[in-house]
């Protein structure tokens, strides 16, 4: 299960990547897309929406289940990936790159520090495997 080193993660399987100029890209992890199976639609906030860290901001629907998307950071949505709306399967095929959901402008980069590192997230996945 791929977990890119330069991304940050949540316990609810979102990823956040610091781009530049206080912009953070957000998506779901490879683990999340794999658990969901074939993704058929997404429901995302709009550009200009304020989102708050820890709050549900959208939904990912696969053929078999729906899962809330939780904001990993607080800020204002600057951009929404139209590609994942038109072709949700891209979330399955490329969750960390082409399958990004939204870009959020954050105030203060320090809120990224609370998120899991790649190592933390990998350890969490490892423990989940053991519990199963």
């Amino acid at each position, binding site marked *: 299960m791929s977990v890119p080193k330069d991304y940050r993660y949540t316990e609810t399987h979102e990823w956040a990547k610091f781009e530049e100029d206080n912009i953070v890209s957000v998506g779901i992890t490879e683990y999340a897309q794999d658990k969901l*199976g*074939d993704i*058929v*639609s997404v*429901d995302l906030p709009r550009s200009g929406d304020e989102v708050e860290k820890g709050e*549900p901001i*959208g*939904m990912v*629907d696969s*053929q*078999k*289940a*729906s899962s*809330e998307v939780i904001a990993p950071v607080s800020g204002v949505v600057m951009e929404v990936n139209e590609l994942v709306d038109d072709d949700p399967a891209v979330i399955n095929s490329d969750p960390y790159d082409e399958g990004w959901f939204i870009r959020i402008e954050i105030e203060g980069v320090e809120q990224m520090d609370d998120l899991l590192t790649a190592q933390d997230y990998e350890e969490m996945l490892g423990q989940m495997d053991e519990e*199963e």
Partner: protein
Amino acid sequence: MSDPSKAKPTALYEDHLRAGGRMVPFAGYSLPVQYEGIAAEHLRVRKAVGLFDVSHMGEVAFTGPRAQEAVQRLVTNDIAKAAPGRAVYTPVCLPHGGIVDDMIVYKRSEEDLMICVNAANRAKDFQWFVDQVGAMCEIRDLSDEYSQIAVQGPAAPELLVRVLGGRASGMKPFTFRDLDYRQVGITLATTGYTGEKGGEIYVPNAVASALWNELLEKGADLDVGPIGLGARDTLRLEMNYCLYGNDIDETTNPLEAGIGWTVKLDKGDFIGRDALVRVKEEGLRRSLVAFKVEGKGIPRHGYGLFKGDEHVGEVTSGTLSPSLKVPIGLAYVNVPHNEVGTVIDLDLKGLRRVSARIVAPPLYSPVD
């Protein structure tokens, strides 16, 4: 519970692994949720033919001079009216009218009946049967001896004849025949959970894998393929077939669940009859309806339905229909908002609301 390795394998476990099945624990068994993908498998059943491993289902035999009488006491439908060789869908109710389980009764004779019960309810049902009517006849749980393979789709009748011979042809819906396969007795029933033609085969474990693989080989030109639990759910949902635990349970009765046709109040006494008579007299307060979402958003079990600010119902099952390409669902909706044509709002877990229209069942009609 979520570890497939702790769940029991069916007789077809190795076949599923070879076919790339994604195994999940389900009712104590390890079963494939999908192979190539839920939507593709779903459409294969609608257009060609698919094989389902439904070995997790339970089989309970009722035998003896009073076997039919015992079954009649348990079930709401009228088994006495069914001729030998008929299969009958029926709920079994608690005294207060709640549903213990829904099942199919196969009547060989008045002294020999077999009941196929839901996997998750197998132990509960068996105990209920024994407690209620165990003194009237012999009741045996045969579940561990039998595998079950469902063959469903427009090409299923052709495939069944190719593999099982002429005795598998010309069968009316909801009938069954005892046949031989490799010198072993099997039962072919023209029942199913998809709305398509075909049947379900009760086969002793020893020859289950041979039968499964012969169905795949002889159906290759018919575009046969194995189908997982995921598509089994979307297929039944398009047909408005209830799923125990989702749409019906001990807190719902058959009259409000839209299966009132299975309740035969005039057949004589049975467990739950008095309560169901009362429900009928008092009138329903809610009913299970089918709906289509008019917009984006997939309904899921537990989502609320609203008329303005009023909470008028709750979703019991929902999916994106692979056949219709629109979100569909089943829900209990209160009177008077449960009429066909009514538009209500589906609440997508507080994110937003989308309109849903109540429609006449079934949501999908198989092409003849």
